[in-house]
């Protein structure tokens, strides 16, 4: 396996002087070709910043990003991003088909080819026949499918996804997760997906990188040895899955992750956050104010080292 992405010493600081805010500090990791890696970290820890640096949308203030060996400066050609906010990411003045064709325009693909490829990729995300509609005429889940199709149409070497399923309902979310895995295997693409949802990261990934609170640093790098064919119900209830997600949850709760500067030290949630969440099916790596809302409802997992190998 060749290395697709090499991030070394990546640091990003917003602002200067007094108002400076370090969002990402000294991150180092690599992603191999054909991998589906998830980065999971608490809300506001710098996940989006990391993706924006990797995609060349903002220049990192320190360190380097290499995409199959080439230093990233500016937006690379063979990289695509799926943003969380599909409704803002799709161009409302273009039809669905034109949205999907959009990246091909700049790659000098003839018009007929563009059309055909857009149709193909729309079909592969389960959206044949909506090409002539406008994005706002589709449901949220369909819109996110469109933006996934648009990201895939130019067959990027690396696909970055920033909390892509955070704003769709649970049902759609499951469908989109399965879609992502299927498409990734069909196209053999490399995907780096960022999420704050522990279950989602374990369910989707071949590998999970756990980030600390702001400024983001990697606290663990887990191989997810679940079978390649995953199912929303059976995989999620398997012992392996449950122990893995407990592992990730525990890592996110560990003092390492909590080591933070300023505002967060006053966080009284440390103790409060332990209480079990009866619903418990999905856990959030601290969405909103309660930053420690990880729940460990089922106490199933003791040490899960058989299934997960902590590399760091």
């Amino acid at each position, binding site marked *: 396996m060749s290395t697709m992405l090499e991030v070394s010493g990546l640091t990003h600081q917003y602002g200067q002087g007094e108002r400076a805010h370090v969002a990402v500090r000294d991150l180092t990791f690599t992603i191999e070709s054909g991998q589906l890696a998830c980065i999971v970290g608490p809300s506001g820890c710098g996940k989006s910043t990391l993706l*924006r640096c990797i995609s060349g*949308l903002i220049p990192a203030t320190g360190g380097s990003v290499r995409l199959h060996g080439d230093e990233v400066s500016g937006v690379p050609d063979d990289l695509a991003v799926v943003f969380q906010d599909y409704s803002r990411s799709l*161009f409302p003045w273009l039809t669905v088909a034109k949205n999907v064709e959009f*990246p091909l*325009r*700049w*790659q000098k693909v003839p018009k007929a080819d563009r059309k055909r490829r857009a149709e193909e990729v729309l079909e592969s995300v389960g959206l044949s026949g909506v090409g002539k509609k406008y994005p706002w005429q589709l449901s949220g889940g369909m819109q996110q499918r469109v933006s996934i199709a*648009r990201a895939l149409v130019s067959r990027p070497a690396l696909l970055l996804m920033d909390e892509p399923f955070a704003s769709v309902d649970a049902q759609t979310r499951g469908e989109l997760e399965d879609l992502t895995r299927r498409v990734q295997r069909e196209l053999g693409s490399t995907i780096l997906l960022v999420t704050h949802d522990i279950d989602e990261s374990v369910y989707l990934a071949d590998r999970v990188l756990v980030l600390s609170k702001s400024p983001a640093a990697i606290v663990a790098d887990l191989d997810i040895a679940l079978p390649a064919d995953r199912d929303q119900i059976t995989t999620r209830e398997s012992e392996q899955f449950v122990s893995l997600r407990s592992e990730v949850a525990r890592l996110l709760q560990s003092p390492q992750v909590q080591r933070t500067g300023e505002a967060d030290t006053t966080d009284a949630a440390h103790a409060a956050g332990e209480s079990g969440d009866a619903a418990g099916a999905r856990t959030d790596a601290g969405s909103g104010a309660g930053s420690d809302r990880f729940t460990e409802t089922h106490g199933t997992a003791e040490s899960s080292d058989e299934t997960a190998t902590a590399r760091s």
Partner: protein
Amino acid sequence: MSAPTVAAKRGRILGSAAVTWLVFALALSAWELIALGADTVYFPRMTAILGTGADILLSGPAWRLMLGDAVFDIVLPSLATALGAWAFSAALGVALGTALGRSRWAMDYCGTLISFLRSVPPVTLMPAFMVMFGIGKQMEIAAIVFSTLWPIVLNTVDGVRSVDQVKIDTARSLGTPRRYWLGMIVLPAAMPKIFAGLRLSLSIAILLMVVAEIVGGSGIGLRISTTQSTVQYTEMWFWVLLLGALGYALNSALLAVERLVLGWQPAREDDA
């Protein structure tokens, strides 16, 4: 179950088209009756006004579709002035607004000046325009351009400035080349605001056309001032109503263009 919705739909259609015209017709009838009762020269009957209007507009030969001289000598030149000046403003204003909006610092320097220029009631500047351009078409055009330009500029700046950051990131990550940036991303995103500016300035253009013509002595404006001073109130009222009709027609035409250009927008209330 579908019966109420069908009825509701029918009600809405009736409401939008037939009923508004019915109300309009009722207002004209009410005018007729009130004028009949009042019986004063200042307030002629609606039938008389419309009759005069028909005489003026439809007094021509058959080969001109009966259109009278007034259409060619008065109405069309006035319209051409207003529309021409407005179109010039639109082109200049969108270009200027785009440049100002795209520039990082231009609005810091010029923002206040433009807001100030927009706030000056253009009617009060008529003497200045007369001194600068003399009396004639040039003065009329200058007055209309000056008063319609700033709303278009400011709306365009606003539109160009308010392009969503996520769309900018998306476009960049999809490799949109710089030279396509304006046409593919910025202007489409700004278009709704630009059209709002265009519609606002179109009504200003009609207003300034009449004022400039009254001051300068030409076209519809001249007819209004002449008929007023020679106590031909029936004809005066006709020209006033004609201005209303022209304004309505132009606004409707622009709305139609807007619907064509902005057809991608989710359905919205029309403020025709």
